């Protein structure tokens, strides 16, 4: 059934009010931005996530988590998107947990993640455009370990992380390493992004790591992380789109121009109705991808590309329509709608843009 089951709805019923309240723009995004918090999110909220069982949502029960899947993680992420709640949930509780599961690293890190203490980041992109097959960072065998050399960027939360999963190329191809942020030779430049989140540029200058820093060779752990990250980002984008859309619909009903609510103007009605359908479609495509991932289906890879491409494209339309339909007030920092546009732009690029994924959907 391509719909949430009862357990998943219960989760949604729990998360939705929590995120709308504790995770609201006023309490989180706007607050941390205005006080120029170096992390771009609140550690207190991350611990709250832990108490609610969200941080360990994908961690196996044996390791203290809930042992749930991508569908459940996406339920959380849609609410995160809807409220623009800043947190390391996507990078840590989703992508990192998927990368480390069933590896020797799981025991070392899952407890901290479940508690809402550990923050993990992924260092994958090396240029302005996501393209993991072009990773050039080298991991050269040296003694009982490896030496990493290269540059990374757009490593979300890396400046606040306890653990940086780093993709590099060994003599055997792609590999993923668990690197400590205080490693010698690793330089971190924390950058504030458009949506007030933080992502680091990282320079690896002869960074030595032990052999057991290797999470896995071959593209399996990296691709697990990416699939989970992309499907999760798609769900967050659906949430961003839905949040912007709901705020805009309320405005259309309330705002009057020429003595009529602007929602009564047919041109706006048709655009809103079109957008409604697009958001529904993006949500369905995203749920499909999550379900297939949870089933371990071969078709999951394409479905994830479709979800990220479609959700990105739809969220872009949603925020554009939202700002335009709000008119001048939407251009002010005082109004929340602009934050949706900023967040959309960042999640759009995260783990690959819609154009990247559209290409991969038909060729990859």
């Amino acid at each position, binding site marked *: 059934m*391509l*719909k949430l089951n009862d357990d998943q709805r219960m989760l949604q019923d729990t998360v939705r009010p929590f995120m709308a309240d504790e995770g609201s723009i006023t309490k989180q995004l706007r607050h941390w931005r205005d006080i120029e918090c170096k992390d771009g999110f609140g550690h207190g909220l991350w611990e709250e996530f832990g108490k609610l069982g969200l941080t360990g949502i994908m961690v196996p029960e044996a390791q203290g988590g809930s042992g749930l899947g991508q569908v459940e993680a996406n339920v959380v992420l849609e609410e995160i998107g809807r409220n623009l709640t800043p947190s390391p949930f996507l990078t840590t509780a989703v992508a990192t947990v998927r990368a480390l599961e069933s590896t020797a690293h799981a025991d070392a890190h899952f407890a901290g993640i479940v508690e809402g203490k550990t923050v993990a980041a992924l260092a994958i992109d090396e240029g302005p455009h996501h393209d993991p097959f072009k990773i050039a960072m080298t991991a050269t065998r040296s003694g009982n370990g490896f030496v990493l050399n290269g540059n990374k960027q757009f490593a979300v939360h890396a400046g606040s992380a306890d653990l940086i999963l780093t993709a590099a190329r060994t003599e055997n191809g792609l590999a993923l390493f668990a690197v400590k942020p205080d490693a010698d030779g690793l330089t971190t430049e924390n950058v504030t992004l458009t949506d007030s989140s933080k992502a680091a540029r990282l320079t690896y200058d002869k960074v030595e790591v032990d052999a057991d820093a290797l999470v896995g060779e071959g593209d399996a752990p990296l691709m697990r992380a990416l699939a989970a990250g992309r499907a999760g980002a798609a769900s967050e984008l659906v949430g961003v789109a839905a949040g912007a859309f709901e705020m805009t619909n309320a405005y259309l009903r309330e705002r009057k121009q020429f003595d009529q609510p602007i929602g009564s103007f047919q041109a706006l009605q048709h655009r809103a*109705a079109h957008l*409604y*359908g697009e958001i529904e*479609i993006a949500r369905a495509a995203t749920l499909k991808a999550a379900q297939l991932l949870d089933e371990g289906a071969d078709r999951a890879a394409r479905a994830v590309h479709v979800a990220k491409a479609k959700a990105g*494209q739809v969220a872009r339309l949603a925020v554009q329509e939202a700002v335009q339909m709000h008119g001048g007030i939407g251009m002010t920092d005082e109004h929340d709608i602009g934050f949706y546009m900023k967040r959309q732009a960042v999640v759009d690029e995260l783990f690959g843009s819609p154009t990247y994924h559209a290409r991969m*959907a038909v060729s990859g």
Partner: protein
Amino acid sequence: MLIDEITHPVAEKCLPFRKVKVHEPFSRVAIGSVAFQNGATHPPPKGQGPVTDLEQFRAETRAWLEANCPAEMRTPMNSEKDICWGGRHFEFQSEAQKQWMEVMGERGWTVPDWPSEYGGGGLSAEETKILKQEMKSLGCRSPLTSFGISMLGPALLQFGTEEQKKRYLPQIARGEIRWCQGYSEPGAGSDLAGLSTKAEDKGDHYLVNGQKVWTSYADEADWIFCLVRTSTESKHGGISFLLFDMESEGVSTKPIKLISGYSPFCETFFDDVKVPKDQLVHEENKGWTVAKYLLGHEREMISGMGLGGGAGSSLLSEALGDIDDPILAADVARFDVDALAYQSMMEAFIDQLKAGEAHPAQPSMMKYAGTELNKKRHELLMALGGSNALEWESERSNGGAKARDWLRTKANSIEGGTSEIQLGIVAKHILQMPGA
């Protein structure tokens, strides 16, 4: 299988269109009050029992199909000509086609989930699904396709009197009577309720005068189900739903030639047509309720067309081949993303319907998105075909099939309620936008 091959009621071209057929009961919310389908007036389903019974049903069904389906009817359909429409004047393509329709009609398996007292198969949802699966697995063709099955039947089950059900439904099930639909009128267009075909009360009968348009296959139909005006006091509340014989005195039809070159529709004229009062469905002046029910039904079917060749259809990007046009390739990639996403939406929508969780106006969204997507698909097929696709009358192009199909899709967003009408319905009923 959720996606099944059934000819779309306004289908015009060679290969059968696909429609979404939901074999599980529709929800009340989704498409009206199909109470009987939820069991309220449904007879106790046969064979609804433990899995072992269903397995037995499957085995028996398979055996029966193997014994009764002629070999010729177990080959794929090649064109619209292969469809069996039934009716008084139907020219069967072969003895096998006739035999297949009759044997299935006798068993009620042309309409497996209709109650058996009305000529149906009386099967439960699970059994119906098994029948379809076995038919598919053996490659059995659909024995009978008709607007009677897809449209009038469900309406009669919902709104007909016991007498009407007994009179008309078995004829439909057995393929004896072919029906057409008399809704649209010249000048009314999207404003369907603005119809003016008049039915005057003459005591024991109505006297019908007026004109319909877009009557699918009216020139081949035996009977018509028709919206008429019985009162001018209220626009929607003055409409009635009549059934009558197309051979009645005063009925004439004229085919309409379309831009695709085909003529699947007619103009239909009524000049003092006498219709006995027992051929009124539902109450007088309550025909709009019946019409709305049928329109919702039609939209769901049409929305399935967005899938193009259906769920299993190949992606457009596979048709790109070695065409060296990166911009066209980009359009195709984006289309495939949209098409695959819409396929998921279709799946989700059907699951929502089954669970009774779909918004009643959701079919409008689906119809809009699906038909716009299908139009785009054919625009891209034309672009992929280049000048080959522009040929209109050559053997090579199969009589211009690609171009004609492309032109035919332009009607998708007009028939069954225009895209503009659907968007308005979504804005009003789902988004609760204020009236203008």
